[in-house]
């Protein structure tokens, strides 16, 4: 919370919504105070552009002559790789070179000073802008636009000829569902935005576009519902992104953004939530979250995030709510198992044998007899082996990856037990831990949990149950101190909010969840829906002979 105040004070003088539009002009002037203006000469203008683009070979300069009387010399400059060449031919060159044939420019009233009007009237491009500043014009060219220069006219006119994405949607890879939409975000931010727009046809959906990175100029789209999102958090998100955009040379992934804008830069747990699913993103926008879409990544960052986000999936809302609630409870239980099960095994077999039921103690002692290592090393080796297997399986191509997992899990595990190197009990413990770790739907959070189990195991080996309690305290304190844009990460558990648990811990039916979380959404506008929505059968009409 302290950090949030500090940051917002710093940029208090800025109106939050106004400054984004001026963003790139501002950032240009920050980099270099001197403007590079265009000249009257066509050739010089082209040279300016070429030198600004470091004489790269993919710059195309197409000279043309507009065949009016007298004819006008011109050229269009664009970057081959990012424009649609068909558009250049059909929307720019054809109308200019053929449509104006033999017409008197004087009769039409076009003079050099009015060349922008000529292009606006004759070209079917949706965006035509005039730039006096060469640097600004180059940015447009880098964004996929063409720059038209006309001899004797000291400005560049940009026309939109950018290539659209040919990928309409993708299957979400990390958030698969059995039941539910199979549409996922793609790398192109405008397609992603379209997916959100299609789901939320609201006039309150605010879209802010700007560029991040001094070199990369990556497109970032920030989307939120202005009536539902908490304005202070929106300001905070925009300020942090602005700060990053000015001072970082380049961003190449959403992960990069996360690192810069997170509240907890050094925490073991990654408290920033990103999703690959437009339905999930839209639902979260409706809860008052802010979507940060990075052009180039199919993962959309949602801010602020809370722990419950990592334990719910879109599919929960397609299943019967009893079962969905049960699933969620399994995931939370899974998190505890992942953190503590191997540690409990180590503690119980090396310190607290009296805690075991007698028969279990005998069985454990029996299976461990002949195992040469202490329980701690036994469990540590197996856990390490499992993590290595998982890493190997992910990096390899799918079918080889599967083979590696099977070979590793079955053959190595079995032979290790048969050779008496590890006990069957520890294999079961490691396997159980692994299975439960896969129940947590979002791997970026479960990574942190998986690391804690090594800490817990070590503490358990040194101190027994006391060590585990110490680990539990440490993890609890760490998690409770996490913040996401000032919102306590452990909400609705700490601070406890029973109202919010209806949707974040359990999964009650939709009609029972009437309010948005007060931690996340705008506190003036928390009511989601009316009271009477619980469905019931129609009133029976008695006595009509049935």
């Amino acid at each position, binding site marked *: 919370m302290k950090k949030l105040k500090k940051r917002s004070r710093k940029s208090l003088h800025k109106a939050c919504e106004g400054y984004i539009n001026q963003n790139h002009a501002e950032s240009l002037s920050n980099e270099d105070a001197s403007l590079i203006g265009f000249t009257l000469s066509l050739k010089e203008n082209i040279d300016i552009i070429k030198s600004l683009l470091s004489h790269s070979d993919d710059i195309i300069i197409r000279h043309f002559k507009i065949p009016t009387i007298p004819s006008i010399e011109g050229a269009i400059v664009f970057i081959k790789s990012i424009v649609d060449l068909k558009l250049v031919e059909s929307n720019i060159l054809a109308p200019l070179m053929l449509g104006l044939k033999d017409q008197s420019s004087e009769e039409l009233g076009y003079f050099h000073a009015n060349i922008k009007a000529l292009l606006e009237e004759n070209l079917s491009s949706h965006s035509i802008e005039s730039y006096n500043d060469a640097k600004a014009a180059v940015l447009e060219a880098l964004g996929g636009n063409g720059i038209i220069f006309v001899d004797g006219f000291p400005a560049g006119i940009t026309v939109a000829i950018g290539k659209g994405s040919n990928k309409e949607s993708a299957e979400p890879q990390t958030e698969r569902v059995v039941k539910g939409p199979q549409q996922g975000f793609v790398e192109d931010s405008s397609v992603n935005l379209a997916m959100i727009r299609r789901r939320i046809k609201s006039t309150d959906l605010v879209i802010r576009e700007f560029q991040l990175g001094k070199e990369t100029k990556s497109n970032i789209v920030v989307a939120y519902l202005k009536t539902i999102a908490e304005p202070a958090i929106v300001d905070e998100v925009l300020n942090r992104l602005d700060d990053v955009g000015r001072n970082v040379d380049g961003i190449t992934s959403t992960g990069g953004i996360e690192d810069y804008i997170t509240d907890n830069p050094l925490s073991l747990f990654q408290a920033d939530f990103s999703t690959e699913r437009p339905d999930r993103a839209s639902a979260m926008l409706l809860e008052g979250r802010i979507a940060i879409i990075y052009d180039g990544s199919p993962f959309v960052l949602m801010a602020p995030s809370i722990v419950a986000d990592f334990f719910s999936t879109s599919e929960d809302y397609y299943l019967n709510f009893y079962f969905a609630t049960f699933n969620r409870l399994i995931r939370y239980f899974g998190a505890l198992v992942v953190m503590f099960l191997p540690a409990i095994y180590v503690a119980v*077999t*090396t*310190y607290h*044998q*009296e805690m075991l039921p*007698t*028969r279990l*103690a*005998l*069985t*454990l*002692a*029996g*299976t*461990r*007899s*002949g*195992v040469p290592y*202490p*329980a701690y090393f036994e469990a540590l080796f197996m856990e390490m082996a499992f993590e290595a297997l998982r890493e190997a399986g992910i990096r390899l191509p799918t079918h080889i990856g599967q083979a590696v997992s099977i070979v590793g899990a079955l053959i190595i595990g079995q032979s290790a037990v048969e050779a008496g190197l590890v006990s069957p009990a520890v294999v079961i413990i490691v396997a159980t831990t692994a299975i439960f770790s896969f129940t947590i739907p979002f791997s970026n959070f479960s990574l942190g949990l998986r690391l804690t189990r090594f800490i817990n195991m070590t503490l358990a*080996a040194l*101190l*027994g149950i*006391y060590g585990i*309690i*110490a680990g539990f*305290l*440490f993890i609890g*304190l760490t998690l409770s*101190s996490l913040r996401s844009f000032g919102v306590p990460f452990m909400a609705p558990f700490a601070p406890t909010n029973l109202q919010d648990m209806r949707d974040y811990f359990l999964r009650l039916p939709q009609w029972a969840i009437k309010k948005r979380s007060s931690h996340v959404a705008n506190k003036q506008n928390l009511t989601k829906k009316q009271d009477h929505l619980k469905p019931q059968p129609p009133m029976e009409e008695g006595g009509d002979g049935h």
Partner: protein
Amino acid sequence: MKKVKLLAIMLICILLTSSCWSRREIESLGIVLGMGISKTEEGLYTVVAQVANPGAIVAENPEGRDVYTIMISEGLSVFDALRNIARLAKRRLYIAHIQVFIIDEAIAKEGLGQVMGFFVQVMEIRMEPFVFISKLPPKEILDTPNSLGLVPSLGLNILARGYGTTSKYYVSNLLKTVEATNNPIINYVTTLVEKLPPATNEELPFLKLTQLAVFKDQRLVGYLDEEGGQAYNFISNNFKNGLITYECGNTGDQYVIEVLSSKAKIHPIYTDERIGFDIELKVEGSIAERISSMYTKVPIDIEKVERQLSQTIEDKLTKTIALAQEEYHVDIFNLSRNFSIKHPQKFKEIKDQWNEEFSRSDISVKVEATITHSALNVNRGRL
């Protein structure tokens, strides 16, 4: 940084609070499941430990004799003898999982106090193992392998916990034993374990819980038979389930009643310097079996059965109470508890000779039996 320091301090504090510090791998322990205590002629204590053999227990078809080892040693006290066993055991003896104690009858007659001191002091042990009395040397009882591949101590533990199927005996655990030896007012009962010869030549010998051992304070004074065991369980509210059989005088029919629940209420009376108790017992049961004599094909008269059942149980109780009062002079039912709650002043005066006072007291028994269902077919018991 401040937070990190605080956290470090907290962690160190946790370290200091840990009171036991002993890392030992589970497989390096010799898990003692049963312990027997007897005395040699020279007055030394002999301790028998039944140590589990975990490697054999997890084997697919464990052999009856492979799953345990019997170790025996003598010493000046129980603890001394136990430490002497450690000299021959190759593993650290771990007594937290002890299931049963077998105490030799000779020690029980001398007094349990001499062996219980160790179990009051030792921290490792739980208070839940069952305590048995044996006429045979404890090592004979412990070394009774069974065809289930179960360690005999575990088997005995299962027998003790299953007393509720007949309610003919009652096995006290270590907590009750220690309590009874430390408090001279509390009397104590537990069960005698005997080794039966094998049923056939192929079979192994069996362990059976037979009689209720009656202790005056901490000394064994005698035994009650199965009927006495049932009466004890009725009065001390330990009766779980069990069969009562009686023969109807008029018809010669035999009835077997399964008692489903029973509740005893004890009202101590103190009037005119005389101590008395009203024992009010409510029993619910069902008719489990009727052995009809040849010529009486009549339906069961439930009310009559209830009256007869009440009478039968009443007789059992009266008989056992008379035995306790007149033969053993021991308040085996610990009625002193009820009396001390109602008349604390008077109890203080007489507590030192409570058993004598008990023997002189008037005890009246009133049983109210109800048959909740006949558990018989549509013929209502007619054959």
